[in-house]
């Protein structure tokens, strides 16, 4: 193998994506608000955020499908708003909504895309066969895409997005319509792709998926509210996490929400999970005391944050909204 064909070593290479103050407005709505991002190569980079937080809009700007209102982006060394055509041969994009042709069969869809990517006849045949085998679609090759199940559609969409072996893959909520087993298999495939040199940017609103990413950016109302490795984010959470076991958990939850230093309370089965201001001393004891005063018996103890806590802490009301 020639040396220039070997994939660049992740540590030394330029980042796959870099943005500066990337902003997109639709009328008065600021869908994406001054986002600064750096996505290193050969990583799975996650976009975590609720619906409407600007994940799809950001991905579309990075693919050159939408022009930024302000700011700039550099994707694989190119500017997506000017060099979109050059970029399109090097990226793969799996849209949030299934966007292959439902009235074409699995193999017809793949053949069509192989031809659109100007592959030679032989290459088309081998790549389509490879993808059918790899994504377990060979037995469904002649089935119309519209009649596939959610998991099969998703495999077909990923097969289509990776057909031309792109360096960078954008996956917009790829697992929303998929059962847990398919989701696990899907993530195995993603790690294989990264092993082979690809970089993946994936958006999700599932915590367990976000936790699998090498790095994560949490978006809320168009803003980047936290970013880093999942472990770092959990360690750096700006709140104490208290687990509470209470007899009457609904009442306890309501009582806790009235306390000024409690940021949020979530119920997990019989237990409650409360985020408390980090400057509070002995937070577990304070909560237990407060509940006892309200006549509620409870056991409180401090615990480590999980990603959901990070997400809740990062996306709760803006600092200027609280006293």
């Amino acid at each position, binding site marked *: 193998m020639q040396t220039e064909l070997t994939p660049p070593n992740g540590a030394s290479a330029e980042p796959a994506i870099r943005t500066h103050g990337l902003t997109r407005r639709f009328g008065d709505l600021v869908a994406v608000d001054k986002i600064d991002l750096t996505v290193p190569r050969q990583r799975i980079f996650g976009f975590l955020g609720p619906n409407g937080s600007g994940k799809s809009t950001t991905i*579309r700007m990075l*693919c*050159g*499908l*939408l*022009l930024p209102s302000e700011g700039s982006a550099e994707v694989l060394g190119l500017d997506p708003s000017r060099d*979109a*055509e050059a970029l*399109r*041969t090097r*990226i793969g*994009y799996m*849209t949030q*909504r*299934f*966007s*292959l*042709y*439902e*009235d*074409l069969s699995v193999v*017809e869809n793949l053949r*069509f*895309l192989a*031809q*659109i*990517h*100007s592959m030679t006849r032989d290459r088309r045949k081998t790549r389509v066969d490879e993808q059918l085998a790899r994504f377990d679609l060979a037995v469904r090759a002649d089935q*119309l895409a519209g009649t596939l199940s959610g998991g099969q559609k998703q495999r077909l969409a990923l097969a*289509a997005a990776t057909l031309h072996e792109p360096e960078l893959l954008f996956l917009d909520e790829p697992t929303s319509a998929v059962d847990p087993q398919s989701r696990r298999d899907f993530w195995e495939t993603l790690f294989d792709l990264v092993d082979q040199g690809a970089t993946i940017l994936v958006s999700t609103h599932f915590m367990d998926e976000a936790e699998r990413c090498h790095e994560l950016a949490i978006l809320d109302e168009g803003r980047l509210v936290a970013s880093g490795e999942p472990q770092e984010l959990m360690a750096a959470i700006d709140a104490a996490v208290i687990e509470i076991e209470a007899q009457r958990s609904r009442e306890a939850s309501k009582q806790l929400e009235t306390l000024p230093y409690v940021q949020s309370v979530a119920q997990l089965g019989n237990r409650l999970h409360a985020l408390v201001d980090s400057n509070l001393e002995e937070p577990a004891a304070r909560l237990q005391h407060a509940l006892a005063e309200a006549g509620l018996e409870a056991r409180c103890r401090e615990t480590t944050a999980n990603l959901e806590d990070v997400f809740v802490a990062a996306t709760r009301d803006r600092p200027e909204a609280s006293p």
Partner: protein
Amino acid sequence: MKLSITRIGAIASKEFLHLRRDRLTGGMIAGIPIMMTLLFGFAINQDVRHLHAGLADLANTQASRALAADVVATQVVDIVEHRATAAELEELLVRGRISVGLVIPADFERRLAGSGRPIAQLLVDGGDPIVLGAARGLAGMPIPGAAASRSAEPFAVRAYFNPERRSSIHIVPGLCGVILTLTMTLFTSIAIVREREHGNLELLITTPVQTLELMVGKIVPYVLIGYLQVALVLTLGAVLFEVPFRGAVLDLVVGAGVFVAATLTLGLFISTVATTQFQAFQLTFVTFLPQMLLSGFMFPFDGMPRPAQILAEGFPLTHFVRIVRAIVLRGADLEQLRPEIWPLGVFFVIAMSLAMLRFRKRLD
């Protein structure tokens, strides 16, 4: 980047696959030409029988009664009304009660013996080509007992409402153009909107396909389908209605090709303007109706007011109706039709440029 035949081929063969799966559209390719040719074709069928007729026999002699009986014996008309004057027949004609009126003048016997003037008068609803054709047939029938030396037509035919007496054979060749205008525009007007509505466009525009490749790939399959339709209509016309084909087939292939390309790009342009398939349908009909009405297919072009004529010169159908009639009916060649071909080329270039300008490989 230069145009890639491979990518154009990819788009074109994909369109064929859609057509194969879409029974309704596939059926329309043959269904619309067959249906319209039969519908319009029977309207030009000259073998008409049992038209309602009125008689005003002012002579009321044995000979005049014999003439009326002979007219009835042709089975073309049934006399359903008897009136005393021609004016009364005219009134029935206007009301639509009858479509033919036979007036036998009081001096019928003298006319029959003499040589100069027609022996009787047929009042005809000439707005209706069936009736007009039938009346012409009646006018040519031999009159018993007439002087052999007569030079004038036995009947004077007075066509009401359509003094031009347009030949109905014009209908079938022109119909090719009308059918192509309708189906070609319709098929391509939904071509891009459909991709947008189904969410395919977001994927398609993220691939390296270029706008021109996409546009060309989308019209290529329909050019072939257009030829198929022309062949179908002219064959039906020849078999069922004895429409002649006097020109060169190759000339028609060229003329129809330019026209189909122009019409398809009009559809593409609509497809870049419309945001839903329903809007695309509406816009197609908005462009179809004036073309059908003003192209000279329905009404004689020369009879239209000047502004309508100027407008109609901008329609592809106007030029194609002239091209197809000239080639099919009068055996004209392309060299003679150059003034009709180049406007179609100009239309194609303009519509294609507008479509490409409006189509962005972006979502905003």
